[in-house]
């Protein structure tokens, strides 16, 4: 079985290395060899390390060759087919399944080659040191998180996501990536070699991913602390090398200059968008600068936003985007001018109109806002830019300081006393619940002019009511906003004003219930995902425009209804995930970049390199063959044929024989059992395949099948055949050595007819199952060597198709095959009992497209995502 070489580089600091090794070995990494490279240590390391010799392989270097050459020595010592994992000796392994989760991420797509993880500090309240980083050409200073800040660990970035680079304190390198890119560049001694490697890989279409499911403790610089400036000198030298190689290339990646004119503090919603979008636009190839539309001491919580504020650009820039109230539109300072805003009223203020009409494009978050600006007489082009949520920060697993009394907590954030109607909320809350009800209202007044006075006024209104707290003069770190939301059960936005409230979508992504006015930008979200409060039109006396007052009784009823409602954790998680998926800030940023590019006629983004595929390395197949096909598709026939060509199928006593296939399944009973358990552990079976892949189920499956691979490897070529592998083959990729996939396809109507007859399955269900298995199978093998056998054609022309298969296997470099003889082939591939292909159920358009892609064999050229979504 192929595995991974875990390479720990050590230089002195034996206690640090010992802690690393002991914690690493305690995780009992599966299918892994630990290699310790002693980089010329002069302390107790060589002697102490000897005690580990029975558990690790030791590579001793005569002197300290630096991080890069030391790691390269470890890579050279690894098994030639193994993946490698580079590990600093100052890591502490507190997560038992860290390696398996890295494997999951590494093999999620064929083009992924490099995987890092979340690294957090040793503090009691952990700081997040790293979660995938980036480097800007301005300063060539590697940032370790998207915000550039060392944030508290609040479960941000816990999903796998593509990043510019990962810190090679931990890096999982797939073997096919190593073979494509080579080892670390020895132009670097230490530092910047990781960013260099990831950028070089990206140029070959190899993706770098940060595996959010893995978090390790990193006691940084364990090997270079107290070094009299040695580390700093290394860093400076490597930075200079990196700068000479990459700075101009990184600069050339920008498509144009864009000025964001807005705010970083107040109003909070505009500042929120500056933080969310400036970094994303910059990462998408727009060189962002920032100018405040009003006096402010800039907020510095986001690195790219702060950098944008420092950048000096020669006016006019390609495009200016004013994200502020409409009164600032006339200040737009770009060749092309965009506005991004909203109003609180059914009609935008009159003094915004001239500025709006001076724009080339006005972006608003929803149809309500579009109407408001049209009604005001704005004639410039108005488009809707849906504003999504940042699911990397806002999700139900964010840890929160919950009310210790277990009360139902309502959260209300106030910024403008007139707009947000806090007195009305307090009154409704008092009216809705008895004094002894297990409820709590947390009302936060955002910092701003008058905030403290407002908070004090509200406190007086609810004085003596222990169920209510009002807090002003508090500014929480932006990255902790989901913690604040997750501390509550219900987000309450009973505003008169109809403007965009980012907390509404963030709360839904965090799994909170929502109460919001059925008016303005929050109205639709409340109607679809929460409780929408009936609201009556009224006039904002300050400006003479119409907004809406939520009905008091409706608010009281909504408070009571949400208090009564109970939801399971699974329901909350599923709803939040679905919402976040369909309301993503990444989609907002993509759309915004596209529109700016079109409007300002920016140079198109440089074409991305063709995604890397392991098959492009043209390595010979090792003789491990996976036969993939839906149940009742002829996989047993093809497996039997392969067996006659000399492919090992395992011991005879282990092979399944059943009444539905009296000639034999050519299927290992132990493999079959492992597949059954894997699906069952995830709460499903072959008829109802689970969507979730619980870590424990995956790990048990890998363990069981890994043992079989070891056994079968004694006799290559060999095959695994089990229809459930269509769903599960991807999980085995880390253990397989240059595998070859043999897909077996059959007319889906015949598959459905066979399943209907054997299992009494409804034909439509059978077709849906065929589609699921087939898509997942082709997605799993995308990018890897694979062939396709048409079972119907095999039955019609046994010799021709069998010979074609035989030649394909040989062309892939599989040794040890022999042609079984024509008579043997004809005797084996006798036509099955005639199965009707008369449609028992109509196929969907997606199923028809999939069927056509298989018939045309164009499916073999599709990548994994295409196969899954069926883009034919």
């Amino acid at each position, binding site marked *: 079985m192929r595995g991974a070489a875990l390479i720990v580089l050590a230089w002195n600091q034996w206690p640090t290395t010992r802690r690393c090794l002991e914690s690493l070995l305690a995780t009992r990494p599966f299918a892994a060899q630990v290699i310790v490279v002693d980089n010329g240590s002069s302390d107790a390391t060589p002697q102490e390390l000897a005690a580990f010799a029975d558990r690790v392989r030791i590579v001793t270097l005569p002197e300290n060759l630096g991080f890069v050459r030391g790691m390269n020595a470890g890579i050279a010592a690894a098994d030639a087919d193994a993946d490698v994992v580079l590990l600093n000796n100052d890591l502490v392994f507190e997560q038992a399944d860290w390696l398996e989760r890295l494997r999951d991420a590494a093999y999620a797509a064929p083009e992924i080659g490099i995987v890092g993880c979340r690294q957090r500090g040793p503090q009691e309240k952990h700081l997040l040191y790293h979660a995938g980083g980036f480097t800007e050409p301005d300063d060539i200073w590697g940032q370790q998180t998207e915000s550039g800040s060392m944030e508290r660990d609040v479960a941000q970035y816990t999903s796998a996501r593509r990043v510019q680079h990962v810190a090679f304190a931990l890096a999982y390198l797939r073997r096919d990536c190593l073979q494509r890119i080579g080892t670390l560049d020895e132009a670097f001694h230490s530092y910047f070699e990781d960013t260099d490697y990831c950028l070089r890989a990206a140029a070959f279409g190899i993706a770098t991913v940060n595996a959010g499911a893995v978090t390790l403790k990193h006691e940084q610089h364990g090997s270079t602390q107290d070094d009299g400036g040695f580390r700093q000198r290394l860093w400076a030298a490597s930075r200079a090398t990196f700068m000479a190689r990459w700075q101009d290339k990184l600069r050339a990646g920008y498509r144009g200059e864009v000025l964001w004119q807005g705010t970083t503090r107040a109003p909070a919603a505009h500042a929120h968008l500056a933080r969310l979008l400036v970094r994303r636009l910059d990462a998408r190839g727009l060189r962002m600068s920032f100018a405040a539309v*009003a006096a402010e001491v800039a907020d510095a919580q986001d690195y790219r936003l702060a950098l944008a504020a420092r950048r000096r650009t020669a006016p006019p820039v390609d495009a200016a985007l004013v994200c502020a109230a409409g009164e600032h539109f006339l200040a737009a300072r770009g060749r092309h001018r965009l506005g991004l805003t909203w109003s609180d009223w059914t009609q935008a203020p009159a003094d915004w109109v001239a500025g709006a009409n001076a724009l080339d494009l006005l972006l608003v978050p929803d149809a309500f806002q579009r109407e408001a600006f049209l009604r005001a007489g704005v004639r410039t082009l108005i488009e809707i830019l849906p504003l999504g949520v940042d699911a990397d920060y806002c999700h139900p697993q964010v840890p929160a300081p919950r009310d*210790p009394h277990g009360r139902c907590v309502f959260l209300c954030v106030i910024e403008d006393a007139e707009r947000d109607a806090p007195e009305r909320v307090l009154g409704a809350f008092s009216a809705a619940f008895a004094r002894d009800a297990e409820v709590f209202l947390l009302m936060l007044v955002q910092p*701003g002019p*008058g905030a403290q006075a407002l908070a004090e006024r509200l406190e007086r209104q609810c004085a003596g009511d222990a169920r209510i707290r009002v807090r002003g003069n508090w*500014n929480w*770190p932006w990255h902790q906003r989901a913690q*604040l939301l997750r501390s509550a059960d219900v987000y309450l936005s009973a505003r008169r004003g109809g403007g965009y409230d980012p907390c509404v979508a963030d709360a839904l992504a965090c799994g909170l219930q929502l109460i919001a006015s059925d008016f303005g930008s929050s109205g639709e979200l409340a109607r679809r995902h929460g409780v929408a409060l009936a609201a009556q039109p009224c006039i904002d006396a300050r400006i003479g425009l119409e907004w809406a007052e939520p009905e008091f009784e409706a608010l009281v009823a909504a408070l009571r209804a949400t208090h009564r409602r109970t939801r399971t954790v699974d329901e909350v998680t599923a709803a939040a995930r679905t919402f976040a998926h369909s309301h993503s800030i990444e989609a907002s940023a993509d759309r915004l970049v596209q529109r700016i590019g079109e409007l300002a006629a920016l140079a198109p983004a440089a074409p991305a390199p063709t995604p890397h595929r392991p098959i492009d390395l043209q390595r010979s197949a090792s003789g491990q063959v996976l036969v993939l096909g839906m149940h009742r598709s002829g996989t047993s026939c093809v497996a039997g044929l392969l067996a006659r060509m000399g492919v090992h199928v395992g011991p005879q006593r282990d092979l399944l024989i059943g009444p539905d296939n009296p000639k034999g399944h050519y299927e290992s009973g132990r493999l079959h059992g492992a597949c059954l358990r894997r699906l069952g552990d995830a709460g499903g079976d072959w008829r109802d395949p689970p969507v979730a892949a619980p870590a424990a189920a995956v790990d048990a499956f890998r363990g069981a099948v890994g043992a079989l691979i070891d056994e079968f490897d004694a006799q290559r070529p060999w095959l695994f055949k089990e229809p459930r592998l269509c769903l599960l083959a991807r999980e085995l990729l880390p253990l397989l050595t240059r595998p070859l996939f043999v897909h077996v396809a059959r007319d889906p109507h015949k598959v459905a007819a066979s399943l209907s007859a054997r299992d009494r399955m409804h034909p439509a269900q059978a077709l849906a199952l065929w589609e699921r298995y087939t898509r997942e199978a082709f997605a799993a093998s995308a990018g890897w060597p694979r062939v396709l056998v048409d079972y119907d054609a095999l039955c019609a022309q046994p010799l021709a198709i069998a010979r074609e298969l035989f030649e394909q296997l040989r062309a892939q470099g599989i040794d040890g095959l022999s042609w079984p003889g024509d008579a043997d082939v004809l005797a084996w591939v006798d036509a099955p009992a005639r199965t009707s292909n008369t449609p028992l159920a109509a196929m969907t358009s997606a199923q028809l497209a999939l069927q056509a892609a298989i018939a045309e064999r164009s499916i073999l050229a599709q990548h994994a995502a295409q196969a899954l979504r069926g883009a034919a």
Partner: protein
Amino acid sequence: MSGASPVPDVARIDALARQLALTPHELLALTGVLANRPDALLDAERLAQALACLRQAPQAAAAAADLLLLGCGAYVLDDVDRVLPLLWSSPDPDRG
């Protein structure tokens, strides 16, 4: 320290501003200007100079006042999991 300094109420600030022919925001900016040289004697002449400066740059004065009015809470970040437990347990965490 044996207690907080008395905080002038809104009416008193208004009265003082009126006496100096300033808005309350301008008065706030004025205090910033005067605080710039805490070692210098505050006399009528210096007050007049500061007032003149303020009136020559009304936009800057207004911007300065806006920044100050955000309050220190706008500039000091306080962790959610430090503040919230105080709110759960105490009616007024600032005094509790």
